[in-house]
């Protein structure tokens, strides 16, 4: 980490943000016509596209489908040109299979799947440009796409990453901060009830520090919730204006 000062003495990060500050978020809902729900989301330089189909009849093998609730089917893929090094496989490798599983588990916690027994909900996420926080951007984009599709959910799902560096908790890490190798936590939160849908920490961190990092991530998620909510309300206002002529 030497030579690359991730946090300046004045408390600024490489891209000029403060410790708890999010990257700029831009999002649009309903970008595609033929899908049931779709959304495009940019978090800084990370660009994600989410498309939702369903609920529809079960496809493929019915053997593993749950009886009393809808099957949530997720696929996460990264465009071959999304990273600095060209990716050989856009999906199907271990990292994206794990990511697909995480997405599935996250949304099973938030969707009211019991309302649609014997049916299937497809969530497809494509990362077009990756600059850290891919999981978080995927979750946030998928939330907007699910809302666009009108599928009932307990709450928004907001996801944000947080790291810990020089005794400071940093929110919404970019690629350089992720690659530096410090402890990193990904949190998916149902913000109204403050329920945690998914929490992942893959590095050593003293347990005394965990509350602070978790707190930073929670704050960021709540902030994201306000931003996503604004996007949804603006989209609905525009849609209503079009319908009402």
């Amino acid at each position, binding site marked *: 980490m030497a030579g690359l000062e991730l946090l300046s003495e004045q408390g600024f990060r490489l891209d000029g943000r403060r410790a708890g500050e999010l990257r700029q978020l831009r999002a649009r809902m309903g970008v595609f016509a*033929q*899908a049931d729900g779709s959304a495009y989301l940019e978090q800084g330089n990370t660009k994600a596209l989410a498309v939702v189909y369903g609920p529809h009849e079960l496809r*493929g093998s019915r053997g593993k489908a749950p009886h009393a609730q809808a099957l949530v089917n997720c696929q996460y893929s990264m465009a071959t040109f999304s990273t600095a090094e060209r990716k050989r496989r856009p999906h199907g490798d271990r990292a994206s299979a794990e990511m697909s599983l995480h997405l599935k588990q996250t949304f099973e916690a938030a969707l009211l799947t019991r309302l649609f027994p014997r049916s299937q909900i497809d969530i497809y996420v494509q990362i077009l440009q990756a600059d850290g926080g891919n999981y978080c951007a995927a979750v946030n984009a998928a939330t907007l796409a699910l809302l666009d599709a009108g599928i009932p959910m307990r709450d928004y799902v907001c996801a944000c990453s947080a790291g810990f560096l020089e005794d400071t908790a940093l929110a919404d890490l970019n690629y350089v901060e992720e690659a530096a190798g410090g402890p990193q936590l990904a949190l998916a939160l149902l913000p109204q009830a403050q329920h945690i849908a998914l929490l992942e920490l893959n590095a050593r961190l003293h347990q005394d520090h965990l509350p602070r990092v978790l707190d930073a991530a929670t704050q960021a998620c709540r902030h994201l919730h306000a931003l996503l909510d604004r996007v949804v309300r603006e989209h609905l206002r525009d849609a209503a204006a079009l319908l009402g002529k």
Partner: protein
Amino acid sequence: MAAAGGFRTVEPLEYYRRFLKENCRPDGRELGEFRTTTVNVGSITTADGSALVKLGNTTVICGIKAEFAVPPVDSSNKGYIVPNVDLPLLCSSRFRPGPPGEEAQAASQFMADVIENSQVVMKEDLCIVDGKLAWVLYCDMICLDYDGNLLDACMCAFLAALKNVQLPAVSINEETGLAEVNLKEKTPLTIRKEPVAASFILFDSLLIVDPTAEEEDLATGTVTIVTDEEGKLCAVHKPGGSTLTGAKLQDCISRAVTRHKEVKKLLDKLIKSKKAK
């Protein structure tokens, strides 16, 4: 409205014929009219060149990444261009999970053939050191929204992305023999030919331009014509289906030539506005 929707589902052919009788199509277009085309270049900063093309609802994004490779043994002064068309699950509910389907593979091969035959970029231009080092251009086209006429959208996205490519200067260090990349000095590619595709469907002996997915499903045959900026043919693709007279094929070609002018105007305007910034 609801009755019309039901009629459309139950009798799609009859529904469509009624529109054609009035010389228009369900989406309000005339038979020879393309959908609104929009192009956006350079939106993906991790790629060396990128473009997003919308043809009505059909959306294709093309990202080009350049890598080093050893030139092929039989032609040591050439680089490579590797096109790939991807139809992911998210673009339409008609595709099934698994390895790339026939349509995606056929489209990839069609793109490769056109690139090879039209010589849009001379492969010799991609050579850095004879027999040692050359560029590989990986051109990945991802369909984000599938609503028919994939080939036209892919070709347009490919051309726009190619025009957007900036390759860094490479020099060979005399002492170590290793390549050194100068990221500050970037040059665009020399584009020799500008192939643009125009696709048609055959329906009841009528030629209909730029089909939507719905129209493609109803059609009995398709024709794709690729022309360059001088109006020369680069490819004529008619994969079976109902037959076509020579006169009709001439109609297709002349329409393809006018389409080329439309697309070229659009791309030129875009490049000019990029340069002005």
